């Protein structure tokens, strides 16, 4: 009776340990999603944000990107490659156009086609108010590729999916 009880307790402890490890240890998928959380946090701008905070966030945005990141926007026929410094520069310039804005990511689907590469399909929603008072609320489907470099997942490609082709 005591032996059965001991075995049951041991099994329960092992199960709880596995559950705790699964929950607490960051899976690769969670690490990838965390990068999007950081991007969302640093792109978003509150009303009355100080220039120091703005510059700091723009600099931080650059740290999320690989040495070369391709951006494709088929609707505008735009396709270009940017370095992290260029991304920071454009992020700062872009944020200056808005008095407030938020960038949120939803419905992330992460796949790992090969080791060290993550492909993510997601919904991106940009809401905000431009400096001249114009309200912006745009939602797009986006495909992104991240590469694991020095144990960090970095963005190497963004493509805005063209759903309707005129």
């Amino acid at each position, binding site marked *: 009776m005591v032996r059965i009880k001991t075995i049951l307790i041991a099994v329960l402890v092992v199960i709880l340990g596995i559950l705790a490890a699964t929950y607490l240890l960051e899976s690769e998928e969670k690490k990838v999603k965390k990068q999007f959380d950081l991007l969302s946090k640093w792109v978003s701008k509150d009303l009355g944000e100080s220039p120091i905070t703005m510059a700091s966030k723009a600099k931080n945005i650059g740290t999320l990107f690989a040495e070369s990141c391709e951006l494709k926007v088929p609707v505008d026929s735009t396709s270009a490659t940017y370095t992290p410094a260029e991304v920071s520069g454009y992020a700062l310039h872009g944020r200056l156009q808005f008095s407030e804005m938020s960038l949120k990511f*939803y*419905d992330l689907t992460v796949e790992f086609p090969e080791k060290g590469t993550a492909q993510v399909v*997601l*919904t*991106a929603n940009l809401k905000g108010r431009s400096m001249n008072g114009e309200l912006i609320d745009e*939602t*797009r*489907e986006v495909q992104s590729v991240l590469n694991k470099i020095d144990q960090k997942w970095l963005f190497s490609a963004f493509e805005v*999916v063209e*759903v*309707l*082709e*005129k």
Partner: protein
Amino acid sequence: MGSESKIRQFFFPSLTPRFLIRVSFVALGAYLFFSNVLIPIHIKGTSMEPTYHDGTFNFCSRFSYLFSKPKRSDVVTVRFAGNKVMLLKRIVALEGEQVEFRDGKLMVEGKELEEPYVRLPCHWNLPSRQVDQGCVYVVGDNRSLPMETHHFGQTSVKRIVGVPLW
């Protein structure tokens, strides 16, 4: 049981295990039905005026094309981003057909299409293009909007989620 106690029992049922199980099954059934068969949709925007109005509610019937294919003049919901953002548009041309706008008139295969649902003036001009295989050409009914601000064009049939219930 008197009628008074029956009424009381109807509005204030006893929370027996049997009742709770029944409620759980009803809730689960409703969740599965409204997330997979009839999806509630909230219409935002004026691109389908006057057929569908901004701010109104409807349902997207997901199994309308179970035994048939989308056809011209069908109003369909197109998955735009993720699982939550859809476009409500009308099919005006099918795969392989030539479509163009000439002085506001929609031409399919060189002939003007009769569109009794278009009640607002249109001045669009768009050169002829062929609809790709596996795609349909969708446009909103409200063409008084500038062409640049109206989401329309060819889209894969696979992106068609369903049709509005009414």
